[in-house]
């Protein structure tokens, strides 16, 4: 266990040192989400909210900022990993992945350390910006601070597991460009960042349910807008824990499979 934690720390530290010079983080994790967030906000402007109170009770001209904020806030957490997992896959190209495999270090610890570092580097600016927006346009009072904290913790946990899964996937993928195309835009649409998933037709709902982000957004909106207490969101919490388990198992499986595949074929790319 002690070794595990040491490896997590070392990997996080390495990634931190490796990436901190990168200016693009400011753009891709702050300026771009802000521009997209603003466009989403104005996209709602032509619509009349009175007509939909029976569909989504909490959506109105006042709450719309907070509503979109939650979607984009959670999305940035999850999206930060797509970019950094793509970078992580370069370890294979530079040969350092081989050296990691040469060591007895826990593979899961490496992937975890890497995900934690990405999160720490990528999202703090946007989180700060969002907090600022919330304070400025404070139209939806915060209820249930304790449940909200739990929900935010769940968001961090799920996004880290999502990051680990992506890291594992990207490590063993030959064509990371394709994964990128599949993960970037559909996640924004189908995970309900702008439109609640429950209104989707069945096929779209099905795609939405495949993204862990969907559950996080639903959880956060229910806590913030409906003031649900722990008992009322417990089912959702359990679902989240279940999905976390699936992601974790999938990550372990891919890592083991990838290493074994490499040991047999001498080729790191699985897919």
């Amino acid at each position: 266990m002690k070794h595990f934690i040491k490896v997590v720390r070392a990997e996080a530290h390495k990634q931190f040192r490796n990436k901190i010079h990168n200016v693009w983080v400011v753009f891709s994790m702050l300026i771009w989400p802000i521009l997209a967030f603003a466009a989403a906000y104005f996209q709602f402007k032509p619509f009349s909210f009175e007509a939909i109170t029976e569909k989504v009770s909490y959506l109105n001209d006042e709450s719309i900022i907070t509503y979109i904020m939650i979607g984009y806030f959670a999305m940035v957490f999850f999206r930060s990993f797509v970019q950094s997992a793509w970078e992580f896959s370069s370890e294979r190209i530079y040969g350092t992945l081989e050296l990691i495999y040469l060591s007895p270090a826990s593979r899961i610890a490496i992937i975890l350390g890497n995900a934690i570092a990405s999160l720490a580097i990528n999202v703090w600016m946007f989180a700060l910006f969002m907090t600022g927006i919330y304070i400025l346009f404070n139209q939806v009072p915060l209820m249930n601070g304790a449940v909200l904290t739990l929900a935010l913790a769940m968001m961090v946990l799920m996004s880290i597991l999502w990051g680990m899964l992506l890291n594992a996937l990207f490590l063993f993928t030959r064509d990371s460009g394709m994964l990128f195309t599949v993960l970037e835009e559909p996640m924004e649409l189908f995970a309900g960042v702008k439109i609640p998933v429950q209104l989707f037709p069945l096929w779209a709902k099905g795609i939405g349910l495949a993204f862990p982000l969907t559950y996080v957004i639903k959880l956060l909106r229910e806590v913030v807008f409906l003031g649900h207490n722990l008992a009322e969101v417990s089912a959702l919490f359990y679902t989240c824990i279940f999905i976390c388990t699936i992601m974790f198992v999938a990550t372990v499986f891919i890592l083991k499979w990838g290493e074994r595949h490499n040991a047999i074929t001498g080729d790191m790319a699985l897919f």
Partner: protein
Amino acid sequence: MIEARNLKKTYHTKVKKGLFKREKDIVEAVKGIHLKLEKGQIIGLLGINGAGKTTTIKMLSTLIKATSGEILVDGVEINENPLKIKQKVNMIAGGERMIYWRLTGRENLWYYGQLYGIPDKVLKTRIDRLLTLVGLNEKQNVPVERYSKGMKQRLQIARGLINDPDYLFMDEPTLGLDAPIAREIRTYIKKLAIEEQKGILLTSHYINEVEALCDYIYILDHGEVILEGTAKTLSESTFETKITVLELAEMNSEIEASMQRFAVEENAIIHRSPDAYLIRFESKNELTEALVKRIHSENLPLSKLYVEAPKLEDTIIEISRRVNS
């Protein structure tokens, strides 16, 4: 001691043929190798590209699995407890990859040290010692991207020693380095075996490097050991052929006949090249002196005369031919 017995590795690859068609391709990279490596010893794997050197190293270092055969590390089968074996071995490859350029030298060593679960205090003194050993003490806090090629290579060596391995595999450690830096690296390698009692396996395609460093040499060709022995026995039997090249300003049948007579007298083989004015003599002894005399006595129109070092490819083809016949 590391002992490999009848080690084989077969790759099954799929080659894309068109959009959906795939063809299976079977490559026998290593076809039954036996080898032994003791602590404090340097052994060499010599071979041209594709001979199976890197595959062998990767099997010995736990990175890839042998299709058949066994590897014993200090008497323990390698697959029995790979994590324990990983503590005892490490690998150093040539080139500038495999280290993080944005990190400093010390940070690189620290990171890899963590992966081996080395206690902090031990790690700190070890990093200090290794940095001194490879002469990077002054540059330890400089990012690797500002290192020269030789410094990066030295850092690679320090990195390979971070877990204080008993056995070290070096894959072309001097690849692409200038002669003085390569010489310097060789000195380190020798020091590691003698002073630190490491068992070192070295691959190379420079004959002289292997000759100078290794106690025992295996020559690999197409996945097989075609010859093995100490540097001394090998050099007597194979490396000693000398090639003397003679270039004349003109050529006619008379000169040609005379050269053939010369070859018979001196027990040499003639290799003709596409260039009609150029003749290569292959022999045990150097022929320069005898040739100069002959040219002088027959008044031949000499334009060039020099001795050529045998190319590894030629040597291996030659050995392979001899072994097969």
